[in-house]
């Protein structure tokens, strides 16, 4: 059962990532692109967790955690830059 | 005791996080314990007014309610997204806040954003009003009443008298 569910899960998330990429390229505004990137990193975490299940390895957990940390900080930095024109005041 | 552990819950949380990250063993238990005592002491000045947890069972209940709402609201919003975008009735709503504690307001805003269908967009300078964007709003008074009754009142009981 898992042999069927895993590829479907991969497929769903890859399509989701492609949709995010569409929004990232299409824009039209800067906040839209930042939002697309934000969603992309969240979907990337889901993809990596699935990959961990497929490879039967727990190492990928740490990669997921790191993406979560870096993604959050970068989204906040970009959002802050857009409101203030500066990141650290 | 109060001096050594200014925020007992934060310490417990840090300790459990450390154990989850590094695996359960005696060595990490001890190291985590040291960190759980030292970190809150070091960050003490960053917390000007400490929120006091008054009602722990209510907090557990609140967390469960929020998780349940996340699941049900996700289903509702999935239907909205897949349906025609023309039928959506988006709106900006101002929610008058009764909470006074910053931490409690943060929790309320996060809860509103986590349950799909509503996103908190801004807090006024005087911390009296919260600006919310709703994906599909039927009636403003109804939405405000629902948020107040379901999230704000429990939070008020948890953190303030």
């Amino acid at each position, binding site marked *: *059962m*898992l042999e069927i*569910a895993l590829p*479907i*899960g991969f*497929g*769903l*998330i890859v*399509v*989701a990532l492609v*949709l*995010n990429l*569409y*929004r990232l390229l299409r824009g039209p*505004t*800067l*906040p*839209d692109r*930042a*939002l697309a990137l934000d*969603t992309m990193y*969240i*979907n990337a*975490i*889901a993809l990596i*967790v*699935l990959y961990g*299940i497929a490879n*039967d390895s*727990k190492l990928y*957990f740490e990669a*997921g*955690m790191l993406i*979560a940390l870096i993604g*959050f900080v970068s989204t*906040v930095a970009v*959002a*802050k830059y*857009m*409101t203030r024109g500066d990141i650290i005041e | 005791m109060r001096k050594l552990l200014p925020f007992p819950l934060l310490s417990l949380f840090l300790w459990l996080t450390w154990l*989850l*990250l590094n695996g359960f063993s005696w060595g990490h238990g001890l190291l985590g314990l040291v960190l759980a005592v030292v970190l809150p002491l070091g960050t003490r000045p960053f917390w000007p007014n400490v929120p006091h947890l008054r009602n722990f069972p209510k907090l557990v209940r609140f967390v469960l309610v929020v998780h349940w709402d996340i699941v049900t609201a996700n289903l509702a*919003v*999935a239907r909205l*997204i897949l349906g025609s*975008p023309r039928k959506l009735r*988006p*709106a*900006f709503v101002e929610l008058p806040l009764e909470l006074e504690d910053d931490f409690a307001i943060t929790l309320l805003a*996060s809860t*509103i*954003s*986590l349950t*799909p269908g509503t*996103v*908190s*967009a801004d807090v006024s300078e005087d911390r009296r009003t919260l600006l919310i*964007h709703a*994906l599909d*709003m039927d009636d403003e008074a109804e939405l405000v009443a629902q948020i107040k009754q379901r999230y704000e009142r429990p939070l008020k009981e948890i953190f303030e008298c």
Partner: protein
Amino acid sequence: MDTLVEFLVSAAILVGGVFALVGSFGLARLPDFYLRLHGPTKASTLGVGGTIFASLLFFSWQEQALQLQELLIVLFLFITAPVSAHMLAKAAMHRQLRRREDTRGRPWKQ
């Protein structure tokens, strides 16, 4: 592997995938920024939540011991996702992004 656990893991993977896709679909299709903002909250809650639950169950079963590490990712996302959504909304209001005409109420001046 026990059939029941395998079934639950598969179901969680599918639920997670479907919700991540629906969230991203919303991001790609909804007409204005404030509406699009609602998509990712779904992806970060039930989308990642579903896959993490699957992974939790899978490894707990594999090693015959409760593995809760993955919960940290969900916990972290639950704390941070509302914050980034809030910051992006503020940025959008600051730039006075166009909103759909029939939006009731108005954003605040930043």
